[in-house]
């Protein structure tokens, strides 16, 4: 087990339009046993970053350390990383157990050590994993193959575990089950992990911390709470949280907030914290207040019921803007209170209109 440190990593590719930076000055630390989820839209460089850490690509500039060891020039096979990709790449001619044991047969381990390690891993993989061991990959479903691939990785006791969208090819129900298995394995074996995904919900689930990437840069690293309640900019705010937050263009002048021809007084707490002029309001689905004297009607276009949370996400228009509002399940099809709806000004995130950096956030709510 070991920590991971990246210092000023730059990676350029020679593309058709000349040299193109895929990674622009990435510095990052992942603690011993920590799982860091890297999330971002396609093309943001997250998979390239993983390859650089694995040694499958070498950085143009910058250094990579596993613990105190400089790995920058070390070949991938000598780094001791475990990797799982979206395609499972099992040895098709071997049963699952052979896939798990292969590494030990080719390294200096006794038969007993191998058996013991395979047994312990299989035990942790769950009740029904045992009977996968005797089967060939082609007889396994996608989900089962991926579980074997992950087990194969874990069994080798990797210094660092790298996963690139490992469950993206599974169907939704299977994904839900597999991610909890992976999470428990990481906890149990305490492996330092980088987990790449485009799905923010999966990132939140898998990562002890999250790194949000855009266009070859890391925009922000932190816990879910850091990113959700104090995102550094509108991009991070939009990317973290489901449903996506609603962005309302607004302007502040003489202590009043103007949105699409209407205006409201800015709460006293906020005056002085925000500059006059154009703003972007970030409104999360739970930031709306019903039945307000100065509220305006919501025109519902459709409602998405989420019975497990006893809420409905209502999609509609408010002041001509597309918005998403979280409501109690019973009000999914509308209620009188929705005729007088407005954002809860004190809960919102306020961003600059030009470079979209965060101007003000109330931070995490006080629950107790």
């Amino acid at each position: 087990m070991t920590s991971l440190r990246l210092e000023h990593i730059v990676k350029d590719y020679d593309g058709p339009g000349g040299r193109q930076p895929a990674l622009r000055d990435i510095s990052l630390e992942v603690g011993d046993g920590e799982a860091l989820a890297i999330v971002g839209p396609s093309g943001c460089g997250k998979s390239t970053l993983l390859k650089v850490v694995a040694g499958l690509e070498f950085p143009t500039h910058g250094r990579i350390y596993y613990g105190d060891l400089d790995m920058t020039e070390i070949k991938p096979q000598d780094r001791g990383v475990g990797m799982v990709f979206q395609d499972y790449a099992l040895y098709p001619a071997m049963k699952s157990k052979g896939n798990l044991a292969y590494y030990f047969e080719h390294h200096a381990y006794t038969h007993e050590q191998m058996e013991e390690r395979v047994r312990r891993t299989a035990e942790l993989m769950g009740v029904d994993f045992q009977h996968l061991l005797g089967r060939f990959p082609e007889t396994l479903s996608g989900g089962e193959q991926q579980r074997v691939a992950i087990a194969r990785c874990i069994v080798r006791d990797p210094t660092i575990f790298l996963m690139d969208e490992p469950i993206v090819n599974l169907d939704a129900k299977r994904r839900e089950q597999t991610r909890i298995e992976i999470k428990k394995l990481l906890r149990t074996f305490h492996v330092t992990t980088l987990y790449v995904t485009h799905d923010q919900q999966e990132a939140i689930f898998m990562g002890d911390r999250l790194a949000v990437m855009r266009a070859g840069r890391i925009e922000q690293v932190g816990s879910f709470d850091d990113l959700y309640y104090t995102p550094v900019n509108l991009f991070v705010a939009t990317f973290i949280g489901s449903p996506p937050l609603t962005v309302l263009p607004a302007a502040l002048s003489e202590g009043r907030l103007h949105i699409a021809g209407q205006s409201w007084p800015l709460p006293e707490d906020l005056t002085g914290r925000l500059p006059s002029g154009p703003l972007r309001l970030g409104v999360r689905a739970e930031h709306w207040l019903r039945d307000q004297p100065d509220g305006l009607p919501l025109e519902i276009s459709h409602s998405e019921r989420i019975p497990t949370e006893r809420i409905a996400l209502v999609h509609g228009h408010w002041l001509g803007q597309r918005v998403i509002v979280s409501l109690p399940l019973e009000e999914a099809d509308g209620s009188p209170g929705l005729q007088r709806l407005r954002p809860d000004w004190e809960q919102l995130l306020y961003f600059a209109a030009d470079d979209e950096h965060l101007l003000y956030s109330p931070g995490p709510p006080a629950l107790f």
Partner: protein
Amino acid sequence: MGPASGGIVIEHLVKRFGERAVVDDLNLHIQPGELFVLVGPSGCGKTTTLRLLAGLEPVSDGRIYFGERLVNDIRPRDRNVALVFQDYAIFPHLTVFENIAYGLRARHAPRNLIRERVANAARLFRIEHLLGRKPRQLSGGERQRVALARALVRDAALYLYDEPLANLDAQLRHQAREDILTLHRQKGQPAVYVTHDQAEAMALGDRIAVMRDGKLQQVGSGLDLYERPCNQFVAFFIGSPGINLFEVEVHPDQDGGLRLVHPAFRLPVPEEFQARVAPYTGRRLNLGIRPEHLQPPKRADFAVSEDSTIRGLVNVIEPTVSGCTVYLSTLEPTPRDFVATLKARLPGSYLGREVPLAVNLRKIHLFDPEDGQALLHGPLATDDRPIRVTVSPSGEPANGPAEQPTSERETSEASTQREEQA
């Protein structure tokens, strides 16, 4: 062919590949203007059903009607069906404009009509600025909107969607669902939407049909399926995170009641369920508890007693819009995973700690381990059509009875049981 004013009727539809029935005696009536979702795991026959509707595969048995018209032997192009696929099926060598116009050109529509319709569709899906580009210059979300725009310019009798959002980033999906609903409402024609994602089904469908192994399990609104699953499979498949399933034994109590006994708990059976459960005394049942029906005892909005709790070790805390989802495991020697959705955020300091969670006993589900049939809250008999419901146990029970032979019952029978219960 004009609009299918009588909706789409599927009668005893069968599709065999060799010996195997991939679609097995399917009966459905899709209403005019309805967005009907077919949902199920990979290999359940949902996509094959869609292909049968489109005429891309010949049926092995049964009948498909568009309104009054039997279409079994009608060629795909003459069925006038619009398809939106997962990979969008847009032509790489054509511009966005020509891709959208393709269906109209193939039908020799006049040039000014084509121009007008393409412009309108492009505006609706926010791709006006892309009309001159080739598909490879577009993002995934933009390509998907081109495919939708192409469906919009046509006047089809039926719109079919095969996992159209599968390749989109999570953040684009909310918008794309809106776009699909927009298209659906503009056309006012029946649509069938196939997905493996129950959350998508719940977000889009007027009604949802759950399929498994080629057989229809249950049809209803999302909430119907969630609150009144006809069997263990539907209960398991609908809802995310999924229902918690435990294999329990029914034991008599000292004071004349019944208990559901598991190594991790002994839950009393509420009085109103005793008559239904009594015949199982001394036998096994599968207990289902929805994640929202497990709450911290002090914060529960239902009656809590000392023996109505399950203790668990907190493995993962996942934040949600309204609180958090907590993943736990029971404390007995072979621990079992379960999930609770709480209305407040559980602080991270609870990770790795033991907590008690109270069970809302009046909301539990019980399933017969033999055939998977729901004992307590079966479906209501609101459907006027004689849709056959096949019941079989879920593929994912608590400690796993293996595959059981399936048995069949009619919904009417399930509803009779309901009345008895009332």
